[in-house]
């Protein structure tokens, strides 16, 4: 589904990603861990197409298409979803209006009819339950006045509504208390399908107790320096990142 090869990216002339490789197949969950400043969030932004970053080398293939050649909204319409680390507030724009616009834009792109109001509302009711999001929040402005946990749940709710092929969760767990974390994880797990995949970017191993990854990768200094099964996460939690750093240096 996603194939990243030798990806280099920089911001303001500073190289952050330095030859990153990653392949994600349908049905898989990949976790990306790493110390602060390793380039985790950069990876998420680059995949979504944030223009502050310049791609200097490498390629990203998404469902056989050149992802880097697409505009941000095109990527989204093709089925790439980014759950933001810091979801943005948009005053005056209701969640409902926002989502309906997004869904209909995507449907238009795919040559489908706009969703009927009735179907849409039924979908909202059903999927907001998934993340225990109060239906009142659906009528409020996007993320405005939401608590930290509500914002993150809203991200997963949007994910449920937009039915992406590939979801990138950028530190969705940071700042969540244990109850909110459980709800978010439950939502993500419920949305898991054979033909979809997720990349879970996190700083903390604890998220992976709830969202069980098929693979764990360690991102360090702009590269994936170690990959392994889910047990790798436990090892990282125990020993920290220093041993990885040593390993890298010793290479």
């Amino acid at each position, binding site marked *: 589904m996603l194939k990243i090869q030798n990806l280099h990216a920089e911001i303001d002339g500073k190289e952050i990603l330095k030859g990153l490789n990653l392949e994600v197949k349908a049905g898989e969950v990949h976790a990306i861990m790493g110390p602060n400043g390793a380039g985790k969030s950069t990876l998420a932004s680059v995949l979504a197409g944030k223009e502050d970053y310049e791609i200097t080398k490498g390629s990203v293939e998404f469902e056989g298409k050149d992802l880097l050649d697409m505009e941000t909204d095109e*990527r*989204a319409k093709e089925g790439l979803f*980014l759950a933001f680390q810091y979801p943005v507030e948009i005053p*005056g724009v209701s969640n409902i209006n926002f989502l309906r*616009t997004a869904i209909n*834009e995507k449907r238009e792109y795919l040559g489908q009819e706009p969703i009927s109001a009735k179907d849409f509302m039924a979908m909202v009711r059903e999927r907001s339950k998934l993340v225990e999001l109060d239906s009142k929040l659906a009528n409020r402005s996007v993320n405005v006045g939401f608590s930290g946990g509500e914002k993150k749940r809203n991200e997963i709710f949007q994910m449920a509504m937009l039915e992406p092929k590939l979801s990138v969760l950028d530190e969705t767990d940071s700042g969540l208390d244990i109850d909110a974390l459980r709800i978010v994880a439950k939502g993500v797990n419920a949305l898991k399908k054979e033909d979809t995949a997720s990349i879970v970017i996190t700083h903390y191993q604890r998220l992976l107790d709830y969202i069980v990854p098929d693979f764990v990768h360690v991102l360090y200094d702009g590269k994936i320096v170690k990959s392994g099964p889910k047990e790798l996460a436990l090892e990282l939690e125990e020993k920290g990142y220093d041993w990885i750093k040593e390993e890298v240096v010793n290479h």
Partner: protein
Amino acid sequence: MADYTENELAKDLENKEYEYGFTTNIESEKIPNGLNEDIIRLISSKKNEPDWLLEFRLKSFKMWEQMEEPDWAHVKYQKPDFQGISYYAAPKKQKYESWDDVDPEMKETMSKLGISLEEQKRLTGVAVDFVMDSVSVATSFKEKLSELGIIFCSFSEAVQEHPDLVKKYLGTVVPQSDNFYAALNSAVFSDGSFCYIPKGVKCPMELSTYFRINEAGTGQFERTLLIADENAYVSYLEGCTAPQRDENQLHAAVVELISLDGAEIKYSTVQNWFPGDKEGKGGVFNFVTKRGICHKRAKISWTQVETGSAVTWKYPSCILKGDDSVGEFYSVAVTNNHQMADTGTKMIHLGKNTKSTIISKGISAGKSQNSYRGLVKIDRKADNARNFTQCDSLLMTDRCGAHTFPYIECENPTAQLEHEATTSKIGEDQIFYCLQRGIDEEKAIGLIVNGYCKDVLNKLPMEFAVEAQKLLTISLEGSVG
């Protein structure tokens, strides 16, 4: 989106032709250019006016001659040549017996404006007093309204049919000497709307007028007088457009609202006068004096969405004279290309327990200059007065300007005044968020801007709100710097 550059924005905006820039080819009667006592007498006699009104005009003219055009507003423009304007233009064929008699071209104009009377009659139940240039040519729903004792007619008609009411209230809220343009209007006003709602009557429908400047080289000086008698209620809509022309057209209207004890007037404006082309050529000079007076427990609410005019100079105001009266001002002002707007409000608190709210949302794009200027004055005797002001400015490019000039004057220690203002750039992170959800740039900006203006748009009557939203989106298509 760093790469969605100003250039693209500029291109998008410049390509946007003025949608309503068509002219109506009907025969019209124009009097010679220039302004002097004879012209005023001519206007007055053409309209068959009583002597007291002629006197009112002549007195105003004398005052105007002594006055200087104000220059304190944050706008720059070539001052109009007041002798180069024709002060009266009326479609030659007057007096329509029925709707069928109305010039087909004029009907066409109206339908292009989206306010075809027929359609409105059928669909919305809005009674429209359509003012093309200066003479009211069609009114509807009159009978229905008259059953309730509501008078809604052209100003000229009111002068003939209800002279006592006109005489009693004309110039009481905006005195002739108020300012340069009010004096000019008082001398030469050609027509406008008149409305009277009797005691205790709630007007069952939205009253609506559409203003349009048609004839080349004519200024429009309409005069609106709206009286809500004790405990009456009325919601009044005003829309404005003008055809696209190279020269600047002057529009200097005066609107006076009188809200007597316990009455409420809701006055909504969607103004889309021709703003000039992308070079800043042409466009309407909109120098308008709008003011209302509230008696005891009365309320006046101004709502405006302003996207047009080359230069705007306009401060719909409330004099809160009666105890427990309420004034409100909700405004969205969009400027683009070379437009300049200096607009805001005045809330004059004279009575006790008076309340006012000001919500102003400015959006500047292109090379435009957009200023909010507002006065909140709490008189010595206005115990327990309250004001809340929120004025926000949104900047779309780095060549435009957004300015805020609030004047807060308080002479009473029991008053509570709160003023907040912010100026910021349209949020790149907001746009990115929308894009990531698959919403394209243009729609994203539409969403964000409409969201930003929501507090004001919500105050408009439904059918106007839709039009206003469309206007906003058209005015700012693809506009992020």
